[in-house]
């Protein structure tokens, strides 16, 4: 009997700890893992606020113009950008450098393989000066091969499509830079509240919180669950810890003062454009400022 009770308590504690520490991090990871695919496939305007969307569209047009001008100048198109980036990152790692060198040596011994793969991956214009490539960019070629080895087969097979998609990826990259280079950050700019936004609400509610000095008896934090309308008016105020509200007379009296403060301060000065973020939120009323009584 005792043993089973002990196990039951242990399991309950484990579940609570697991849920407490595990779940919020799961929740945070979601926007981190999925963003890159979403940014590439979906229009950003649907993910960002109107102002952000408008500025980005304009910037995209400008970028397109720049790219067109570059084509007119007949400059050879650079190799696909994603592969470059990947190679640069891998160059930074010592172990992979060694692999690249080994592969480069292998390529020297078997030039046929080299040519075939270079033809498939690189656009024809790059091969206009084969001597330079052989002399100076042996390692680069090897890196290209490494890319073909490390990257999924789809890229090698769809090498024709790479050219067509090249312009789009370039544009998207620049949009990423403008928008913060990740979908998560784009979302955060939408959610993020400035310190001023919070301070404005804090200062507003503070004016209405009239608390008895008896609250200094027990230093406590009263949490209230607030629902607001878009105009900042209070829809509902709920005292979070109902159990303590029933049991502790100091908590109950102070929670009532906090509730009065919130209702009295309606409408709240919600930041423009961010009203929806305050549909449901929490107020923590901390009595620790009452001292020397």
């Amino acid at each position, binding site marked *: 009997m005792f043993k089973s009770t002990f196990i039951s308590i242990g399991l309950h504690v484990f*579940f609570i700890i697991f849920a407490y520490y595990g779940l919020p991090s799961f929740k945070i990871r979601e926007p981190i893992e999925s963003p890159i695919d979403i940014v590439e496939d979906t229009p950003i305007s649907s993910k960002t606020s109107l102002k952000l969307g408008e500025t980005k569209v304009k910037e995209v047009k400008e970028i397109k113009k720049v790219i067109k001008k570059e084509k007119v100048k007949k400059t050879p198109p650079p190799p696909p950008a994603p592969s470059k980036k990947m190679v640069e990152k891998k160059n930074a790692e010592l172990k992979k450098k060694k692999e690249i060198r080994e592969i480069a040596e292998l390529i020297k011994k078997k030039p046929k393989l080299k040519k075939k793969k270079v033809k498939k991956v690189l656009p024809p214009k790059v091969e206009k000066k084969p001597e330079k490539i052989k002399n100076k960019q042996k390692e680069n070629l090897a890196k290209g091969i490494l890319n073909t080895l490390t990257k999924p087969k789809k890229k090698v097979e769809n090498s024709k499509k790479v050219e067509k998609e090249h312009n789009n990826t370039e544009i998207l990259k620049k949009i990423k830079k403008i928008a913060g280079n990740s979908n998560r950050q784009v979302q955060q700019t939408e959610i993020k509240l400035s310190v001023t936004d919070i301070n404005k609400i804090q200062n507003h509610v503070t004016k209405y919180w009239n608390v008895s000095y*008896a609250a200094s008896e027990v230093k406590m934090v009263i949490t209230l669950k607030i629902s607001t309308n878009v105009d900042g008016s209070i829809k509902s105020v709920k005292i979070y810890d109902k159990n303590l509200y029933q049991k502790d007379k100091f908590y109950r009296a102070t929670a009532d003062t906090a509730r009065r403060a919130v209702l009295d301060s309606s409408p709240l000065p919600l930041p423009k454009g961010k009203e929806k973020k305050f549909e449901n939120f929490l107020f*923590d009323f901390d009595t620790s400022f009452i001292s020397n009584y």
Partner: protein
Amino acid sequence: MSNYLNLSFFKVLILIYSFFISNLLADDIRIKINSGQVEPLPIAIADFTGEEGKANEIGRQIAEVISNNLVGSGQFKAVESAAFIAPPTSPSVRPNFTDWTPLGIKALITGSVKSINEQQIEVEFRLWDIIAETDLIGLRLSVDAQAWRRVAHIISDEIFERLSGDSGYFDTRIVYVAESGPQNKRLKRLAIMDQDGENHQYLTDGSFLVLTPRFSPTTQEITYLAYFKNEPRVYIFNLETGEQELLGSFPGMTFAPRFSPFGDKIIMSLAEKGVTDIYTMNLNNQEVIRLTNSSSIDTSPSFSPNGKKIIFNSDRGGSQQIYIMDANGRNVKRISFGKGRYATPVWAPKGELIAFTKMLKNKFYIGVMSPDGSGERLLAEGYLVEGPTWAPNGRVLMYFKQEAPIDDGKSSNVNLYKIDITGFRETRVLTPSDGSDPAWSPLIPN
């Protein structure tokens, strides 16, 4: 198979826990409010309604007493009744809250008085939160019509507790030394009254000098010192029966007898051969134990609420200061280090503060400090202010104040005052004659 089932059961259990707990923790925005106002709460007290003239009059008086109590605490601000828009006719009628909000009122008290018979009345009240539009507390009491004042104090305590969280102190009494006559032939009598000065009565006739009355924390008893034929005696006065018990005659001077927190002992100081030390007397077996043994004057002892420590004042360090020691007299340690002299330390009922009298540059002060001597704050000052006593909730102090003498040979006025521990509101307690040495009772049992 059973193991597999158990495992899947646990997985489901984890998912259920996770779902609920994640929902609980999923709120995005938390805004901390860590400052506010500590000001009197605007409150409206409507006259308690009655069916006929007498009940109506009692209702009006009850509302007045409640108003005086709450305002006198320093925590409430009564809104003038003339400003009322539509007082509800009965406590059971829900007020029209929107009528009251423009007046800045946060809480409203409504009530009624009904005559049950010629002697008995039924008093009902309700406390409303005007902003939250809800009732906070309600109570119905059936009492003797003559006890309407006590009903008003009980209601005041209920309202005070519900709105502040702290226990009330209105249904209490004060015992003090009533003084009259010229300075050289001063008549000193023991007197008792409600904490607001009403229901005043004398307990002794003035045939002998009385000093330092103190309430028992557990019973309706008072201990006091009387000089009978110039011999100091310690008495216990039972307020319920009117009987007095002589605890003993003590050689030399005896000072400031005070009950222990459990009411089983009396602590006092006795002077012998020019030395004053602190003693306890067990009320069950009259056993006297000496706690201090120094060549200095140790006096005004007061127990901590848990009975484990004693504070007292002593001049053992060269000047009069406050000291603390264990209940057995060991580990004596000085706690007051400010300028001036300190006297009459009294431990607060909750133990977090010590009230004292301070003398500095020909002025007297009433102050409070922590039991370790830190956080000294002076609340009141005067030509002579002395003898602080705590209200049972530890939020208000009462003391006596003597005005500076105007003419030589004539005694100056001595009056009782009370002040809340914020020090913002000092009010005089009206007594029929001069008064000194007050002692506050615990809440009167129902």
